[in-house]
């Protein structure tokens, strides 16, 4: 049977991808970030997961405002890196796992989570930057990836609780898939940041730290938190952190925190990385 073996939280800042692609990883602005991810990179390489369910958001790449799915699950065989206005990132094609993705789609819709099924989708930095941070720069990604795109750029975004409960439903789906697969769930985005308005550049280190503490020990406090509080405390784009709750929901009530990294800044953003394993 397939099983969820780990959950990872990670930022997906586009400038990190540009630093990787532009060969600037040793620059003092970026070196601390890649050093901070080293533990996770080694750990994931040793774990050799078969599939990563990668929860992220699209930034006006695959989706214009013509169609705004709240949750869109990538069921295709492969997903090409998107052209975000300056050419696609030169990273490997992302290979999906259609059978597991369709199984999840079927299971969660019958479980009353009415997600959108994507049979063709390009993936932007929201998905490829966490791959670069955690898997490095291989010629082929060593894992299959099922993208789960969450709308966090057009209000109304889903509630934090809905994201969490979708994670629980995904875990039920994975557990009922007959193949023996090690599946990790990655929640990406955040941490605190705001790109526009008079508060542009907002960073809330204390709130981010509390978020990470609660993600391990008291996720109920985060899943009942209002959108207003996420925006007020973590910034308009810090709202992305609701996607980490899908990962947390998929792990079950008891988890072990294996690793935590926090750094300010990556361009406009606070960077966070956590690694969890489910306990029992």
């Amino acid at each position, binding site marked *: 049977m397939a099983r969820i073996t780990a959950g990872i939280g990670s930022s997906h800042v586009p400038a990190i991808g540009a630093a990787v692609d532009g060969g600037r990883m040793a620059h003092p602005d970026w070196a601390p970030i890649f050093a901070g991810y080293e533990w996770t990179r080694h750990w994931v390489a040793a774990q050799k997961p078969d599939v990563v369910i990668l929860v992220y958001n699209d930034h006006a790449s695959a989706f214009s405002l013509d169609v705004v799915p709240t949750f869109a699950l990538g069921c295709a065989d492969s997903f090409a890196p998107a052209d975000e*206005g300056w050419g696609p990132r030169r990273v490997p094609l992302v290979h999906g796992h259609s059978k597991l993705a369709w199984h999840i789609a079927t299971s969660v819709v019958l479980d009353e989570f009415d997600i959108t099924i994507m049979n063709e989708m390009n993936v932007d930095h929201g998905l490829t930057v966490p791959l670069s941070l955690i898997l490095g720069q291989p010629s082929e990604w060593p894992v299959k990836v099922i993208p789960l795109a969450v709308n966090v750029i057009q209000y109304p975004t889903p509630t934090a609780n809905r994201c969490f409960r979708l994670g629980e439903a995904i875990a039920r789906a994975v557990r009922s898939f007959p193949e023996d697969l090690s599946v990790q769930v990655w929640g990406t985005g955040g941490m605190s940041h705001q790109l526009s308005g008079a508060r542009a550049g907002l*960073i809330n280190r204390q709130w981010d730290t509390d978020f990470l503490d609660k993600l391990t020990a008291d996720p109920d406090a985060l899943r009942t938190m209002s959108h207003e509080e996420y925006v007020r405390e973590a910034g308009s784009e810090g709202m992305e952190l609701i996607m980490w709750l899908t990962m947390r929901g998929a792990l079950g009530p008891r988890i072990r925190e294996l690793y935590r990294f926090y750094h300010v800044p990556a361009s406009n953003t606070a960077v966070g990385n956590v690694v969890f394993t489910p306990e029992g």
Partner: protein
Amino acid sequence: MHNAAFEDIPGTYVFTGERAIAGRHLNRFCMSLMSAVNRARFKRDERAYLDEWAMSDAQKQAVLKRDFKSLLEQGGNIFFVLKIAAVDGRPTQSVAASFAGQTTEEYAAMMRSGGRNPAGLRSISGRF
């Protein structure tokens, strides 16, 4: 589609349904810049390209002036209007700095020293 609680957060644009209505054609224009052909046409004659879209004149002026604050006030979504900056080869940090009237250097220095502190920037009414 309205969420009054967001209005209490200073200097912050949450892209609500109201903003989506106001910015519908502006954001469609921005999305069109995903195509290299359209980027070239826009660069060749910005005004003529803008006139192909059902945008208000004030929105077109804000595009021509690269006034990102005005674009967001008129319904632009940050991830869409950033495509205009991408055409110019202008980094996101430079656009972010412009919102608060900072130079890119001032803004980058602020980020390196921990970012903008939220103290005093949580609530217009003073509730938080």
